[in-house]
């Protein structure tokens, strides 16, 4: 009788529990699923548009696969099981060149291979040599143009590479400062970008035999980014913010060094991306992003094609990532905020799906990323993104604030595994493009100079306070987490706003700005000037830098911390992080420390990354207790 009662009681209890959990049912998705590396990556189309190539893991290492588009056959053309293929390119329609890590110490070897996998041959190069392709040479089946740093690891010279023999001949010697070589559609290298790391100079020559002459120099605050030649002699397309705030698409005359006209300028945002066709010297489209990516078409044919793709793939963002020489076949990547996206081949108005970036992610289980904006205390409009967990009202939620790295980068609207992972765990995720972020003009970016520890931090704090005042965040359950500069910001927030955050996590966050400054070549004056302006002068602004460096502020820290550090990080000194954590532990501050001896600033080993995110999940869970399931 009693047993029966007991049984009945348990049945009732479990029914109650089940009905409870079914109210807000969100499936907890394994961390592995979010942080899976994509199976197929680095897609390229052969110049004749008949073959597709990509990298795919084979026994855990990336190898090259070539797919015939006519016969739909896939051939694996390399089979390395020790080290992955790093990058590759088509050289003509028959051969591929690729680089592979030799010994894990970033010593690369260059190989060539036929597209059917035969005739793999090593091309002798000095150690540390890297190769980049400059031009496929449309009208030449024998040679391609490459940039290679064989002579001096710091300088890339231009070589002519015989596809069949692997013979390479240097045709332009780098005078020492050139970082980018640009060829015209005939394969003549006529444009070069020189840089001392701070100031950039554009060099130009009219003929193959002429001398490169400097056209214009600008300091680190201005940008003049050449895109390619126009059909007009001496004219190039470029992105420029010289004499204006926002980066605009301009027509630039290299012979006079003058901007001829503005092709497109957005009053609110920099132009992010321009698609340019080299073979026809034509601009296809450009994009900019205030809160979501916007496209402006510069070519009707491209617009037609784009509209066609959009009609076949509604509600997807579409990017063209490669095309063949004749511009008949296009490689397209799609994505949304809830969908990591897929690769498609667009040929003769037909779309063929090539691969999903992460097939295990189901868009309907992901969370919507909403553009938001708020006003900082001094009146700047700050744009950001808010991701609310699925099946939750946007009210009184545990919240993770993620300041981005940089600070000279930005958050964009789109799929982010990190954001979706945390949202799936029940957290509202808040990202913001604080001052100093790119994409909103020169002034907005320079407003962050020398304000790493002050106004940038104020923007973050203002954002969190806005989130609280909008009743979105539960003020008792807010955490801050970031990578690199974001980690630095997280530590800073914890130091100066201990009441705002329950915990803070720093993944390779800078803990000492002196060390960060020291990381740049000390002897070079322009560098120092740039650093003095962006970060601070280590001598004159020592007080500010101390204020802004977490390692000098250990005494203020009360908030539980998670610190992750790579032992080979060249920007954050592992000795200092060890000391930092040691001091905190002595003070009985709750601090969890992940030290990966063989990692650098960014954890390259997926296992280490995954372990970090799992630890982050536990850490946040411990201090925020989200009631998600």
């Amino acid at each position, binding site marked *: 009788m009693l047993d029966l009662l007991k049984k009945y009681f348990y049945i009732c209890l479990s029914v109650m529990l089940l009905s409870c959990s079914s109210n807000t049912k969100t499936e907890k998705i394994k961390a592995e699923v979010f942080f899976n590396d994509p199976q197929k990556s680095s897609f390229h189309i052969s110049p004749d548009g008949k073959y597709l190539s990509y990298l795919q893991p084979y026994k855990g290492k990336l190898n090259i696969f070539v797919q015939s588009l006519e016969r739909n056959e896939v051939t694996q053309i390399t089979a390395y099981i020790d080290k992955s293929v790093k990058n590759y390119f088509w050289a003509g329609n028959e051969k591929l060149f690729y680089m592979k890590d030799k010994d894990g110490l970033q010593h690369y070897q260059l190989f060539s291979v036929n597209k059917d996998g035969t005739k793999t041959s090593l091309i002798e190069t000095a150690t540390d040599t890297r190769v980049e392709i400059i031009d496929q040479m449309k009208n030449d089946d024998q040679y391609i143009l490459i940039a290679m740093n064989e002579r001096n690891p710091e300088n890339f010279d231009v070589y002519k590479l015989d596809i069949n023999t692997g013979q390479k001949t240097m045709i332009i010697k780098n005078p020492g400062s050139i970082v980018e070589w640009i060829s015209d559609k005939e394969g003549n290298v006529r444009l070069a970008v020189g840089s001392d790391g701070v100031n950039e100079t554009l060099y130009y020559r009219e003929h193959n035999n002429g001398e490169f002459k400097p056209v214009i120099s600008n300091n680190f605050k201005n940008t003049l980014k050449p895109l390619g030649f126009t059909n007009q002699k001496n004219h190039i397309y470029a992105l420029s913010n010289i004499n204006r705030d926002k980066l605009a698409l301009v027509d630039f005359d290299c012979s006079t060094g003058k901007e001829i006209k503005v092709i497109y300028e957005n009053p609110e945002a920099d132009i992010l991306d321009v698609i340019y066709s080299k073979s026809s010297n034509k601009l296809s489209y450009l994009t900019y992003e205030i809160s979501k990516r916007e496209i402006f078409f510069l070519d009707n044919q491209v617009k037609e094609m784009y509209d066609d793709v959009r009609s076949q793939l509604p509600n997807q963002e579409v990017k063209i990532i490669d095309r063949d020489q004749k511009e008949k076949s296009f490689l397209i990547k799609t994505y949304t905020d809830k969908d990591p996206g897929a690769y498609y081949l667009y040929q003769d108005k037909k779309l063929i799906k090539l691969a999903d970036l992460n097939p295990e992610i189901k868009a309907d289980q992901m969370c919507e990323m909403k553009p938001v904006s708020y006003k900082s205390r001094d009146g700047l409009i700050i744009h950001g993104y808010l991701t609310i967990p699925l099946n939750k009202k946007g009210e009184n939620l545990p919240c993770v604030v993620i300041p981005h790295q940089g600070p000279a980068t930005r958050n964009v609207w789109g799929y982010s595994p990190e954001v979706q992972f945390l949202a799936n765990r029940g957290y509202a995720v808040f990202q913001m493009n604080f001052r100093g972020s790119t994409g909103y003009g020169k002034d907005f970016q320079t407003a962050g100079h020398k304000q790493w520890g002050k106004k940038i931090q104020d923007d973050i704090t203002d954002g969190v306070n806005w989130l609280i005042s909008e009743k979105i965040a539960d003020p008792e359950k807010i955490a801050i987490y970031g990578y690199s500069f974001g980690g630095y910001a997280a530590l800073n927030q914890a130091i100066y706003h201990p009441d705002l955050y329950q915990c803070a996590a720093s993944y390779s966050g800078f803990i000492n700005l002196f060390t960060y400054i020291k990381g740049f070549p000390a002897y070079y004056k322009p560098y120092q000037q740039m650093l003095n302006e962006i970060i601070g002068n280590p001598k004159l602004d020592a007080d500010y830098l101390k204020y802004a*460096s977490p390692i000098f502020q250990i005494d203020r820290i009360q908030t539980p911390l998670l610190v992750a550090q790579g032992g080979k990080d060249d920007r954050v000194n592992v000795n200092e992080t060890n000391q930092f954590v040691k001091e905190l532990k002595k003070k009985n501050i709750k601090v969890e420390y992940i030290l990966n001896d063989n990692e650098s600033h960014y954890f390259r080993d997926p296992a280490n990354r995954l372990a970090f995110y799992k630890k982050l999940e536990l850490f946040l869970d411990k201090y925020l207790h989200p009631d998600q399931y």
Partner: protein
Amino acid sequence: MDAKKNSYRKNFMLIISFMVLISISLVIALFLGYNFTKKYIENEFASLKIEVHEQTIAPYNSLFQNKIPEISFYQGFLDSLSAAKYVDTIFKNYPFVEKIQFFDTQISNRPIEDGLRIGRLSLGVKSLYQFGQNIPKDSTLIFKNNKPGTLSLSSGDEFNKIGLKFASYVETADTTKAFTNDQIFKIFYSIASNKINYMNIPRREDIKIYQDLMLKDRAPSPLFEQDIFSFELNPFKLQIKNIHPELYQFISIRPLSYDPILERPDLVTTDITLPGAFADYKIYFASEKGFLDKEVNHRFLPIAIGVFVIYLVLAFITFLIYRNLNVNEKMFSLQYDFINNFTHEFKTPVSVIKIAGNNILNAKELSEKERLRYGKILDEEADKLNDLMNKLLSFTQIENKAIKIKSQEINLEVFSHNMIDAFQLKYPDYEIELNIEDVTHFFTDPVLLSSIYHNLMENAYKYAMPGQKKLEISIYRIKKGLMFSFKDQGIGIEDSELENIFKKFYRIQNRYNQQGSVGLGLAFCKELVNFMNGNITVKSKPGKGSQFDVMLPYDI
């Protein structure tokens, strides 16, 4: 043997030996306690110095482990201004730092005048600043490399010490690995007597550059900045916190060689060497012997008191056992007497009855007179036996609370007169006076009350000289009770006997007491009175008389 086993046993030897034993234990406990306390204090004297040492050395450790490594956080960017700020925090928090020298150092592959050159690597002093508690702010700069050759020898020495260490490390450094704590300590610190030299720890990338400068022939390099600090310390300014003033009378910092055994032989001393830069010094602890003895006594006192208390408790228990034994013995003899008395008591009437019976049996015929006489004798003796047995019975009944009080209202005057009349009929020479004040009726059990009357009146008659057989009964109210006072002019009771008279089977040994009584009367009375929620007291003067006061609760 058997007889002994069953007889009452009382062995005072046992108690005495027990007392002796615990007394010996007491002495041993006190002795051992004292010695242990002494040993304990001696141990503490030797061991607690570590606590003092730790407290004293804590600021030094904090300087060494936290404040000095902070130099590295500046990554060589310190200049006179920021160094002055840094140094100020040190002087403020670490009074034992006397002087700080700051070598603003430049590393390059250029030849230099002042500094070190190893291979192609030169460590040059760009400028040297000194800071101190008493050094004015305007004279901090003592060397600048625009006046080469003016670097003093002693300053150069400190610089060379750490410079050489560093250079020899750079020569063989493995730049793929992070520094271990041990390496940091060995390379970037140089510790001498009262001096700590420290060089900021460069990043691995910097070490790689320095290595290249040293080993490879390159064009003149830029100048890389390193900061070297030399701290001059004064051990005598370490603050000693005597956290055990009860143990240590004097604590001071002394050179390692200090030992005043000849001058002060009365001192108990211990010492502990200071670490690191203070390794030539020790903390010296001393206390006078008397001081420590005082502390021993101080600590021993509670132990001694504790031991004594235990001893006293044991002794008291022993006493209680002894007393119980005594009481039991008395009880035993009382019961023995009682049986004796009782047997006698029974024996008299029984033998009288036996004689009377015999006489009647043997007489051929009985005269009327004889018949009456024997009849009377038999009747009287049977009454006596009956009386005896009733007494015994009711006594045990009361003792076991087997009877119940049957209360009713009585007229005190009538009740008392009845009792008096009955006694005067029995004893014509008994003079009894009755005084009743302010009360007429009383609610009680008349049978029990009459028993009390009977016993007390019987005793008053029995224990009085002929001609003195007088009794005064007074009844009056006090507070919530009714007092029955029986005052006689009898022989009285000795003070020493007063407390015993209410005990069972107790009879005062005297000549008036040879016949008749069993010693139950007063005990019985007391039992009755207690049973009726009253009490009975006695006042007596030998030869003058006794007064028994019975107080019973009076409910209105």
